[in-house]
């Protein structure tokens, strides 16, 4: 017995030694693997910096790069690189010439005549002509294509008939000669040029669009400063400089974008030096602002958007303006804003972002006054308070702001039930078929014009899914908004916008919350970067990379000379 135990103990000791050996081996192997991979990073900055390639990230993979199919901000940003419109948004958000070098409007505001630049080339070498513009616009309106951006051009004369299949061509679209496009509208629309600056108004190569059909967006041919060079589904895409670009060409040679959906992952890639710029959200804005390495490299600009709670004016008890005002008085929006993330949002009293189109609101909003809220509720016949549902979209800001709203309303006797829905279900619930009491929404501008923050959101002709989620209807407000749409004089327009905003918000169809602020942080090598008020204005022609020793830009310039040389041959 004794001997047996002794043998077992010896065996065990031997085995322990063996375990240690195996462990050591594994460690060595791991170290070997690590050293093998060390220094072979794909990132741009480690040993040999590449100053000619921009490394960016898209949070979503864009859809096909086809102006008629571009819907999201990512789609539009990518299309902006490849295509041009007749006009574009500049760094101030104003409409400036692009493919058209100038344009005239008839005195009655119905006929727009655009004069194209001569000698503009598509990526395939063909020359841009006026019929190409007519083709592109007609294509957008083609009922067979089913573009979700067809509304952008549906104010053109005959567009609705063509869209509905009742006409074979769009009457209001003409090309009297190779460099002139004449567009006739159904009725005056002062912000029509702003609509043309949207990605939906970009001009495509008719030859390529016909050849590729459904797949055109994966083989895009435009006139823009960048050509699509590669696209790996789910992984990333890259663009190369188009040597024949008509405008001021890019300072970089290649744009390489990866698709990285997760915000934490994007942040890690940025901190590893693999991305030039990172867009900040509420979750990491504070981290970078407090980090001495990055604090000075943060850029911000107001986003053309508004976050709000729509109150259903078409359904009791919110059809009573007293109840809607009571809810507005009950909520301390300033406190909610401070709790979320100061710096990422600005308090909103109305719907039009401050400064947009020279907007100076005369409407001060509803003051925080819970006792007044209770009194208003009692006067409206709800001394005991009432029950309401608030529909929100899953994730992000919604949850941050919905719970404080619920707590504030509870203090004045309003029992708010939060209904959180996944995106598509949310759209169904807040759209035409749903009928919620309150819903937490945001509106992002399609074009930089105050009209875009009034007419779609509050005109009685607009459906909930078109923007009027509050189902607001007021004859005076309707008249004012129609007036704005026809008014070309900017000064009178500004007066009308102020008046309309006031008329609308005195009827309290919303609880306006915040205007978001866009925040970006840049790597030290990034030069010439700025935040564009309208995202599609950015064609990535002005940014470049250069380190503190001044290396980088020369490289880019040499590269450009090479390319131009190549073009002459």
């Amino acid at each position, binding site marked *: 017995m004794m001997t047996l135990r002794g043998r077992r103990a010896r065996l065990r000791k031997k085995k322990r030694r063996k375990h240690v050996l195996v462990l050591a081996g594994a460690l060595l192997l791991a170290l070997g*693997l690590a050293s093998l991979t060390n220094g072979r990073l794909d990132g741009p900055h480690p040993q040999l910096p590449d100053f000619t390639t921009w490394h960016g990230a898209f949070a979503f*993979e864009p859809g096909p790069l086809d102006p008629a199919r571009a819907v999201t901000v990512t789609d539009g940003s990518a299309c902006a690189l490849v295509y041009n419109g007749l006009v574009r948004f500049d760094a101030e958000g104003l409409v400036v010439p692009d493919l058209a070098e100038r344009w005239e409007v008839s005195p009655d505001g119905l006929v727009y005549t655009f004069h194209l630049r001569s000698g503009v080339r598509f990526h395939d070498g063909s020359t841009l002509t006026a019929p190409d513009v007519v083709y592109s616009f007609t294509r957008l309106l083609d009922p067979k294509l089913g573009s979700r951006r067809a509304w952008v051009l549906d104010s053109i004369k005959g567009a609705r008939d063509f869209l509905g299949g009742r006409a074979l061509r769009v009457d209001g679209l003409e090309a009297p000669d190779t460099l002139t496009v004449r567009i006739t509208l159904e009725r005056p629309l002062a912000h029509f040029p702003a609509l043309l600056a949207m990605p939906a108004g970009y001009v495509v190569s008719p030859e390529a669009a016909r050849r590729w059909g459904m797949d055109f967006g994966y083989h895009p041919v435009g006139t823009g400063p960048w050509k699509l060079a590669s696209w790996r589904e789910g*992984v*990333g895409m890259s663009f190369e400089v188009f040597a024949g670009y008509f405008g001021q060409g890019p300072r970089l040679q290649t744009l390489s974008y990866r698709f990285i959906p*997760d915000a934490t*992952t994007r942040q890690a890639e940025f901190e*590893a030096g693999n991305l030039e710029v990172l867009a900040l959200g509420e979750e990491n804005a504070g981290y970078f602002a407090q980090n001495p390495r990055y604090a000075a490299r943060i850029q911000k600009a107001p986003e053309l958007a508004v976050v709000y709670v729509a109150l259903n004016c078409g359904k009791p008890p919110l059809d009573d303006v007293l109840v809607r005002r009571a809810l507005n008085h009950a909520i301390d929006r300033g406190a909610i804003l401070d709790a979320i993330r100061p710096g990422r949002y600005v308090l909103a009293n109305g719907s039009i972002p401050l400064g947009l189109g020279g907007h100076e609101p005369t409407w001060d909003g509803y003051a925080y006054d819970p006792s007044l809220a209770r009194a208003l509720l009692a006067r409206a016949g709800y001394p005991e308070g009432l029950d309401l549902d608030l529909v929100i979209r899953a994730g992000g800001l919604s949850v941050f702001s919905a719970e404080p709203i619920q707590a504030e309303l509870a203090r004045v006797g309003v029992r708010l039930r939060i209904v959180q829905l996944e995106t598509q*279900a949310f759209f169904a619930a807040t759209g035409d078929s749903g009928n919620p009491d309150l819903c937490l929404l945001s509106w992002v501008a399609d074009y930089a014009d105050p009209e875009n923050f009034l007419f779609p959101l509050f005109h009685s002709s607009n459906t909930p899914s078109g923007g009027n989620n509050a189902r607001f209807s007021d004859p005076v407000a309707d008249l004012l908004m129609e007036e704005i749409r026809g008014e070309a004089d900017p000064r009178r327009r500004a007066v009308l916008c102020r008046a309309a905003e006031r008329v609308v918000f005195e009827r309290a169809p919303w609880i306006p919350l915040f205007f978001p602020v866009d925040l970006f942080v840049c790597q030290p090598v990034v030069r010439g970067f700025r935040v564009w008020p309208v995202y599609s204005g950015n064609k990535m022609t002005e940014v470049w990379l250069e380190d503190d020793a001044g290396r980088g830009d020369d490289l880019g310039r040499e590269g450009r000379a090479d390319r131009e040389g190549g073009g002459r041959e």
Partner: protein
Amino acid sequence: MIRFTLRRLLGAIPVLVAVSLATFGLLYLVPGDPVKAIVGERASPETIANVRRELGLDLPLGRRYLNWLGRTLSGDLGRSWITGRPVADSLKARLPVTAKLALTAFAISTAIGLGVGVYAASRHNTAADHLVRVGLLVFGAVPVFVIATGAMYLFGVKWRLLPVSGIGDGSLRNFILPGLVLGLYLSIYQARMTRSVMLEVIRQDFIRTARAKGLEETAVIWRHAFRNALVTVITLLGGSLSNLLVGSVLTETIFNLPGVGRFTVDAAYARDLPAVMGCFLFQSVVFVAANALIDVAYGLADPRVRVG
């Protein structure tokens, strides 16, 4: 053996039909209009009707299902309603990513899981056993995104040993981190199962006999106990592998790997019916195939199964 395998494969057909029917029905029931998801909320009624007709969504549900079945049987999975790409192409692009991640994770989890499980069982009720059990429990209780993000920051950002995320050129080193994270999580479950199965076997008479014969402990554990635990372990491994092969959404998202898992979730959120159906078809085929393989493996590991 061949007849056994064939019978298993034929039995899978009703399963596939049932799964596809259920998926089709569920997508019909969930809220949200797919046409609105495609053409947008501001589209005119004419456009909506047009697109609905073009996609065949105006037909009764039964007809739509039969149409889909017919196309699928002829090898056409249709085009995505959102991207316009053929669904089969998208799946083909994503399959290698998921397969590489799955195999890396599987190799790691099997090596660790079985090793640790057998080790803990052979040292039943010793300090080592307790340490392993508690350690696994603690590790398993930490959410995967914490470990994943931590690993990403340490290895990718701080030490720069491995790529932070993405598949890069598709080489194996891009899959080491995600494979490790995923594999470690899976190994917890495998280690615990292996340990309990082993303990059951070790208590049996033939193990005592083997030890009484004076066999070395290593031989007792691996040749006698482990072989007998193998049938249960194979079920375990087969299940793990098929779970890995249908995609691991969290790991794929955090490490930015464009695999089947993320594709499925994105498609479901967008109500992209052709893509969703393609994904579910692919996943049920993987499941059914994995189960058939497990059955065949049983037969190899345990002769009694073949007879029964």
